[in-house]
């Protein structure tokens, strides 16, 4: 059974692989980041993956959303994605959910999951994930992209900074694929980094830094992020 993961086990060992096989992950979104994340997680052998999204596959998605092809046009993304993922690794237990993550729904979808991975396209949903994750002590991975730029960060409640600790006062001024365009290189890379961050958390070697990538300037930055003792979401407890 483990032969499939030979090359991965050569890096992390069999004990770590077994942790991956027993892991339960919620992926919020099945677009460009989501399909990259799911592709990596399923190939790595994550035991259970629940993926939530309510959109359908459109022609303009095919430029970057790597699990879809022309046959999938008009199909719900989570259904098309899980159909493809089952062909990649039938050992993974996949649960597609056609819905939207809100403050009311996140609890039932995160239930039983070891970690949440953000593949959403807006900061409103990320703030919902952040608040829920901190209050319920579930780690989550932030990822965001636009044009040729991307960022990612592992957030572990009460251990690392949360999203609110390093995010300034939020306005509606956010850059997305819709208003800034998007290159498929950055969604593939940031999705793979988010999946790798989740794997690293699962095997006990979590990433700690905020990563920024600019694929048009060959610019790769790692940022040390401190907790904010006055954070309105996670503050008031120990500070790194």
């Amino acid at each position, binding site marked *: 059974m483990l032969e499939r993961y030979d090359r991965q086990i050569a890096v992390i060992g069999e004990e770590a692989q077994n942790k991956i096989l027993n892991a339960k992950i919620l992926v919020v979104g099945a677009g460009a980041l989501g399909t990259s994340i799911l592709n990596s997680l399923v190939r790595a052998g994550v035991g259970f993956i629940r993926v939530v999204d309510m959109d359908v596959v459109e022609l303009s998605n095919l430029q970057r959303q790597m699990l879809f092809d022309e046959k999938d046009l008009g199909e719900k993304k989570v259904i098309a994605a899980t159909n493809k993922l089952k062909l990649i690794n039938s050992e993974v237990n996949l649960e597609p959910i056609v819905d939207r993550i809100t403050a009311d729904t996140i609890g039932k979808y995160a239930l039983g999951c070891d970690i949440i991975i953000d593949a959403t396209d807006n900061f409103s949903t990320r703030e919902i994930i952040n608040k829920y994750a901190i209050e319920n002590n579930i780690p989550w991975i932030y990822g965001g992209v636009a044009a040729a730029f991307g960022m990612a960060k592992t957030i572990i409640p009460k251990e690392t900074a949360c999203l609110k600790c390093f995010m300034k006062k939020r306005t509606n001024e956010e*850059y*997305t694929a819709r208003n800034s365009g998007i290159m498929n290189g950055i969604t593939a890379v940031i999705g793979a980094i988010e999946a790798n961050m989740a794997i690293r958390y699962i095997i006990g070697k979590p990433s700690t830094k905020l990563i920024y990538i600019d694929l048009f300037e060959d610019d790769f930055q790692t940022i040390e992020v401190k907790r904010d003792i006055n954070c309105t979401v996670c503050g008031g407890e120990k500070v790194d």
Partner: protein
Amino acid sequence: MIKVNAKAFAMLSKYIETNKNFEILVEEGSTLRDVLNKLGLPEDEIFTCTINGENATLDDKVKDGDNVGFYPYLGGG
């Protein structure tokens, strides 16, 4: 006056027509917000900012030779 090396990342570079590192002169005792204002960057587009590779607040003071960075909200997925 002190000299800091500033960089506006990603879309923020449109406000200063370059995203390369460049030096900027500010008064001693200046904060990151002073640097931001001198660069003409809109505060409501700043997702996070850094001094010497660590996240910082806009009220943090900068010193001569500091490297500072400003990052926008990358919201897409």
